[in-house]
């Protein structure tokens, strides 16, 4: 490897600055949260240290478990579909089609529009008065009665996952697209010369080429989806009958409406170990040394 002397200062310095900045702005909050979850602090009231009591209480609470259960289903279903659809979207946009730029911008919109507006619009479309979804479904004779998309537990869960997928797919799509574009066309040519079929080229050139990006966005999106708040809150507030609650929404109700900060933060922190696990598991595959793929 080339040079390793003091003239690597500049990038390294920036790296350090970045790290220090993040540590300063996010580190303190991180440790503060952990501390608070071990107390019985309420908003405005000083709390006393109670150790793991909050967590013990939570683990015996029915609503908490139902929130855990649904959070996992929510994340699993959403990530799987977002990955699939995102990949397809990226492949589609990679083709040299006319008006490609316009399509890219258009398909990017779900992720770019402010969540408030798009989620409320979905609420309305799935609702009964002026609800276009039911209108179309009945018009196309797919169903005979309007479906209570937000009223029945099963449908509500489906709807929420659906909106998350609608919103999150562009994130996967555009990222994977950038990854696809970074694969040197030479590799494809070499493979073609060697006589590889389109399928083989896909498996041996495309997939390894985008693997790091795919893993990265899956990881980040998973962590973000675990903490997803706005979509569920604006669509169903965790209902009907607390069936669509996830960690973040339950935590919100307990912290800000019941003013029970200790418990609320404890709820939010329960996902942290899972996220850390995921992170360490996937980091190995993303962060390769230069030798492996080329």
């Amino acid at each position, binding site marked *: 490897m080339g040079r390793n002397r003091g003239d690597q200062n500049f990038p390294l310095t920036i790296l350090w600055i970045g790290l220090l900045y993040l540590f300063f*702005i996010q580190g303190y*909050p991180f440790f*503060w949260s952990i501390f608070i979850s071990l107390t019985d602090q309420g908003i405005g009231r000083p709390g006393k240290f109670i150790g793991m009591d909050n967590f013990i209480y939570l683990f015996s609470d029915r609503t908490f478990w139902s929130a855990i259960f649904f959070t996992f289903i929510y994340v699993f279903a959403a990530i799987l579909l977002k990955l699939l659809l995102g990949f397809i979207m990226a492949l589609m946009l990679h083709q040299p089609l006319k008006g490609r*730029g316009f399509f890219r911008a258009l398909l990017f919109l779900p992720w770019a529009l402010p*969540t408030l507006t798009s989620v409320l619009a979905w609420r309305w479309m799935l609702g009964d008065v002026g609800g276009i979804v039911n209108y179309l479904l009945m018009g196309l004779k797919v169903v005979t009665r309007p479906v209570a998309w937000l009223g029945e537990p099963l449908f509500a869960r489906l709807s929420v996952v659906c909106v998350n997928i609608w919103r999150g797919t562009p994130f996967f799509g555009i990222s994977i697209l950038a990854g696809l574009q970074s694969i040197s066309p030479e590799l494809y040519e070499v493979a073609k010369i060697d006589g590889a079929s389109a399928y083989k080229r896909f498996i041996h050139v495309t997939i390894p080429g985008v693997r790091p990006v795919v893993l990265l966005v899956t990881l980040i999106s998973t962590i973000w989806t675990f903490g997803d708040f706005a979509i569920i809150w604006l669509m169903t507030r965790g209902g009907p009958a607390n069936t669509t609650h996830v960690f973040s929404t339950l935590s919100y109700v307990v912290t800000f409406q019941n003013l029970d900060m200790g418990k609320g933060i404890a709820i939010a922190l329960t996902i942290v170990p899972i996220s850390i696990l995921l992170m360490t598991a996937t980091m190995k595959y993303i962060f390769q040394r230069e030798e492996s793929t080329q």
Partner: protein
Amino acid sequence: MFFIIFTIFPIYWMLITAFKSFQEIYQVIPKLWPSKLVWQNFLEIFQKYEYGPALWNSFLISIVVSCITIFISIFSAYAVVRLRFKGKRVMPKLFLLSYLIPQTILFIPVYILLSEMNLTNTIWGLLLIYPTMTIPYATWILITYFQNLPVELEEAAFVDGASRLQTILFIVIPPSLPSIVSTYIFSFTICWSEYIYALVVISKKTERTITLALSNMLVADIIPWGPLMAGAVIAALPIMFVYGIASKYIVSGLTLGSVKG
């Protein structure tokens, strides 16, 4: 094909609602096309809901934060991939720590921090905390990208006598433009649609971002669908604009990226 309809239809719906009149919006049977185009909603959102200053604030913040993010992440990613130093494996993982705790909880201590620095209710405050949302992702995407970049180009530049800084600027960055540009766009979008930090930090009407201006419309149990959707349409325009400009770079970046020559 179905996928495209699925994606685009809600956007289409939001678009036409922005042009519908109040009566039409509240009909039981929805109409797929407004009976006449109404501009009232767009006027209302600027006059009644002060969308103008909000757009400016959001735009400013998004641009500045994205620039800072790109600056920091390009060099950080490069350092992690190409340089040898202690803690090289650990550091990038630390970057991701910021994503672990949901923002719905994180904002309390962050606010306390800002309050101590007297930066609440200002754009400066938001400028200080937004990069924490964008830098980790940006850095990591560029890490994965730089890994794919052949080292030979840079080594050739060293042989020619270029300094590391020059190498980065002229040899590494140009072929990476597609990734850099998409990262910029993501960063811009994250800032553009951020809600909770802005909500808590900003109270003053004049310092609001667009997400606050929009949520400020939800005052009673009657939702002003018309102006709200008009707001969404307007919010979409800068994104498409930035994306449109960026697309050109993505394409040209490709041709610059060839290893030959």
